């Protein structure tokens, strides 16, 4: 099939099997920031946004992504700069393999995700084997606070 979409704000066209995963399509197009992890939707390293929803791109079929607005970690500096900054400044990473998924997941958080428990529940599907999660949760809370401030400046 010919898949038409927007990826990171730009038009995107790819000739791919409809049953290929969005992960394969993106990585095949050179967008290797999105990582292949468990390939069964558990670890979260392949998280991308499809029409503003966080999905496991390893499970998401190309056919379902046709016509969608897709954002990957490569677009986060534009789409959610405060999230990227928060992860850099809070050192919310070690090896970095889960980082793209963590950042995209945090970028998809609504304003209802406010406190530590909300964040931990929301991110429970984004595994990290390095950090023990403390700095990731801090980065997420920091990002949420920055975004609240952006929406409603003091």
């Amino acid at each position: 099939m010919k898949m038409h979409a927007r990826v990171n704000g730009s038009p995107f066209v790819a000739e791919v099997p409809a049953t290929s995963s969005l992960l394969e399509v993106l990585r095949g197009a050179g967008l290797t920031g999105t990582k292949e992890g468990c390939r069964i939707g558990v670890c979260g390293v392949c998280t991308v946004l499809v029409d503003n929803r966080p999905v496991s791109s390893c499970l998401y079929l190309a056919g379902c992504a046709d016509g969608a607005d897709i954002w990957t970690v490569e677009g986060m500096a534009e789409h959610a700069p405060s999230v990227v900054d928060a992860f850099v400044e809070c050192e919310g990473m070690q090896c970095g393999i889960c980082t793209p998924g963590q950042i995209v997941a945090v970028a998809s958080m609504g304003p209802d995700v406010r406190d530590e428990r909300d964040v931990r529940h929301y991110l429970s599907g984004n595994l990290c084997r390095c950090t023990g999660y403390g700095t990731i949760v801090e980065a997420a809370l920091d990002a949420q606070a920055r975004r609240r401030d952006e929406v409603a400046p003091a």
Partner: protein
Amino acid sequence: MTESSGDAAFLVPGTVEAAVEALGAAGAVALAGGTSIGLMVGQGLLAPSVLVWLGRIPELSVLEEEDGGMSIGATTTLAALAAHPRVRATVPALADAAASVGNTRVRAVATIGGAVGHADPRQDLPPALLALDARVEVAGRRGRRRLAIDELIDGFMSTVLDPDEVITAVRVPLVVGRRSCYLRYTPGSADDYPTVAAAATADVADGVPTAVRLAIGGAGPAAYLVPEAEELRGVPEGRWASATAEVAESAARRADPVDDRLGSAAYKRRMVAVWARRVLERCLGAEGALP
């Protein structure tokens, strides 16, 4: 030379009728959120010749209250269900079950229709919907029909649906004052499948139950109803403790669990008794010891 993995046709019908038509083709498989189908295709467990995506059919995404019930379109996502103010207020067991499935990414796209039609005995929605006495609305070439959850699911990952049939909605009765609870027991990771799960509904008038339903998940090839829960009808509060314990033992007797990573069959049976009692206590308004 032979080819490697073949490509499936990917159809995106705009109406239920078109979906039914498309599903008439040999080897056709319907998908909605795609979390299970995507997994199975990705792992090579399923090689459909035609995929029929239900994600662009407006009729399937409607969630509305009608007399005495709530009609939930089959492609309503679990995230939407869990966050819906009326669902939370009127059928909290359903909201809690939907909020428990998988992780954030699964809930963002997985649908109520898929969660029921997949018929996985470890899934959260079937026991909750069974306790809520929900009906699944189905459309096919033979027309439309309504099935109870335990009519729809006839075994381990198996339903009575014909290949051309598609789930269009799940209808949940709304009864004023009806309480509902869903508890899942995940002693390891909260993101895991439940070792066992229990759901209950109760109508209580003047401190006396007038209707009680109990359903159990994770402890057999499919979620099952525990008819002995009806014996709680008319039982005064002073006897709830012993009566719920008896019903819980009946629930355990009806269990048909398997040994797996989540626990031995013997342990799961014991846990059915504990969680059946706890969900009944909570639903009837008694305090229970819950994590």
